[in-house]
């Protein structure tokens, strides 16, 4: 893997508050990399350090193997897409897009050619003479992208660029971003607090919490094999069942769930599991099956419960089932036949079951 951008032990403190604590990351050329985390986790601070708007208190940032800490923002070969787009209101769309080209002293003909090509790339060739005020949110977004890509930076930083758009448009822009990144092959570093967006867009995601990196992984691994309760809880919906490791059985682990009994779980990869230590079984709602009759043979874990609550969402219905130990677990059932809204009613006695490879074990 060719490391385009390297973050080495970067720290940043603001008056008594540690925004970043010795963060290290390596981002490959051509990657769509996302910094994901709740607000205040340090993701935007890190992005501003990479862009050069702010200086780290410790550590180093390398681009192509060379430190860029001392380089002012205008000489770093990277551009930023701001949350509010930051289009210059006193310049036309064409002048906005031409701005980075003017700064490096391109000649007029070259600027004209590249600006019109850039506007065509974002399918807004007829907006050249308009002022930003006359554009819709989605159009502003595209112009900001055209402006940031017109002189082909090595790296594009995106700071929650879709958060101001409505849900439909956001989804459309997500698809466009993926396509765009694939076509031009420029490395994207994307900041968001929206885990769904991160999963949809990224090649790799760094989940951040309290100024540190909790886990860096591909979306499917992050979803399937979270390394901590925080990651399991932050990415998607997840049932967290507290337990204790009882016995190691080859590639399986016997776990005692508090108040429920023992269940078999797959041995998690790359983690040391010791008998007697506290752990959490993470179970995605779609991996849990609920039924009114006793389940099939291959089902490993099954417990009695009572439907406590349900949420009809159209394509699926979420059932909250209270187990015998008083714990609520969420299960998700697809409403496969039309008009079928529910399989169970609140108060129904049900069986809750999951396969032994459905859950994923996280050490506390």
């Amino acid at each position, binding site marked *: 893997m060719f490391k385009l951008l390297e973050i080495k032990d970067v720290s940043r403190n603001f008056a008594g508050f540690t925004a970043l604590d010795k963060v290290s990351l390596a981002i490959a050329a051509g990657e769509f990399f996302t910094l994901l985390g709740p607000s205040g986790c340090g993701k935007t601070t890190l992005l501003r350090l990479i*862009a*050069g*708007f702010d200086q780290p208190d410790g550590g180093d940032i390398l681009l192509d193997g060379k430190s860029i800490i001392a380089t*002012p*923002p*205008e000489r770093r070969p990277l*551009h*930023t897409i*701001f*949350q*509010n787009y*930051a289009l*210059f*209101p*006193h310049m036309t769309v064409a002048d906005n897009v031409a*701005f*980075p080209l003017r*700064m*490096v002293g391109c000649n007029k003909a070259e600027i004209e050619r590249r600006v019109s090509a850039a506007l065509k790339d974002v399918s807004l060739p007829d907006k050249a003479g308009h002022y930003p005020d006359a554009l819709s949110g989605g159009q502003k977004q595209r112009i900001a992208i055209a*402006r*940031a890509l017109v*002189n082909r930076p090595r790296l594009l930083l995106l700071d929650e660029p879709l958060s101001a758009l409505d849900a439909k448009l956001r989804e459309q822009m997500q698809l466009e971003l993926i396509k765009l990144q694939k076509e031009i092959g420029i490395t994207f570093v994307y900041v968001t607090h929206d885990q769904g967006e991160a999963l949809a867009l990224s090649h790799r995601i760094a989940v951040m919490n309290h100024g540190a990196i909790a886990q860096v992984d591909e979306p499917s691994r992050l979803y399937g094999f979270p390394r901590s309760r925080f990651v399991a809880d932050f990415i998607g919906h997840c049932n967290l069942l507290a337990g204790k490791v009882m016995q190691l059985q080859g590639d399986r682990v016997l776990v005692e769930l508090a108040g429920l009994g023992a269940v078999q779980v797959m041995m998690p990869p790359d983690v040391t599991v010791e008998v007697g230590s506290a752990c959490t079984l993470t179970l995605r709602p779609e991996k849990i099956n609920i039924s009114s009759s006793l389940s099939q043979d291959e089902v490993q874990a099954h417990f009695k419960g009572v439907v406590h609550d349900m949420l009809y969402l159209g394509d699926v219905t979420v059932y909250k089932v209270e187990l015998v130990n008083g714990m609520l677990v969420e299960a998700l059932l697809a409403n496969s036949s039309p008009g079928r809204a529910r399989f169970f009613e609140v108060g129904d006695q049900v069986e809750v079951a999951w396969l032994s490879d459905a859950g994923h074990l996280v050490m506390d």
Partner: protein
Amino acid sequence: MNNKNRLLIFTALAVYGFLYLPLLIVVVYSFNDSKLNAEWVGFSLKWYDKLFHNNEILSAAGNSLIIAGISALVATVLGTLAGMAMYQYRLKVLPGLVLAPIAMPDILMGVSLLLFFIMLNMSLGLISIILAHITFCIGFVALSVQARMSGIDRSLTEAARDLGANPWQCFRMITLPLLAPGILAGALMAFTLSIDDFVVTFFVAGVGSSTLPLQIYSMVKIAVTPEVNAISTLLMLLTLILITLVARLSPGALRS
């Protein structure tokens, strides 16, 4: 319409009447074909004609324009820098220092500046007047610029730097154009304040260099002639135009 509303309208009319009737009288009598401000004889422009042949008034007007032009220009440059600094660094002391001359009584400014110039052994004249006017104009420009500055999104200047502009290019191509309405409003306000100023100018003018307000005052000492009415009307018109421009450019500037 009930009584309460009637009372409100009456009060409003009385207040506006009190404010503007004296001005209206000056304007009306400037067109009066009589030497006395007592009765209306007929419409005439002869006082204006006389005004434009009065060398003393013309030179005073010329002085006023020169002084207002230069002090507005210098105060605009310094005030803009001060306004930007006040916004950027959020210092506690600086705003106080810049804005104090606004709150200071004019007479105090006049006396202290006079003493200061004498201490420096400066001869009083156009230069001393210009310096004095600059001091009290800076604050107004700074306020206007600061108000405009806080309306500019910080990410715009960051975006400019990010897209390859060095600090100077960023200032010239982004900050300055966006600040322009605030700067222009400040400049016009400074010009208005300078051209209308009497008290401070009175102290630092010295002998040979009269301004329009000083000239009017010295003429009034003898008698309020229709000529005074005419020059006052012109001054009023100029002020009105400038204030309208300022209000157009930045609705907030006049309020602060």
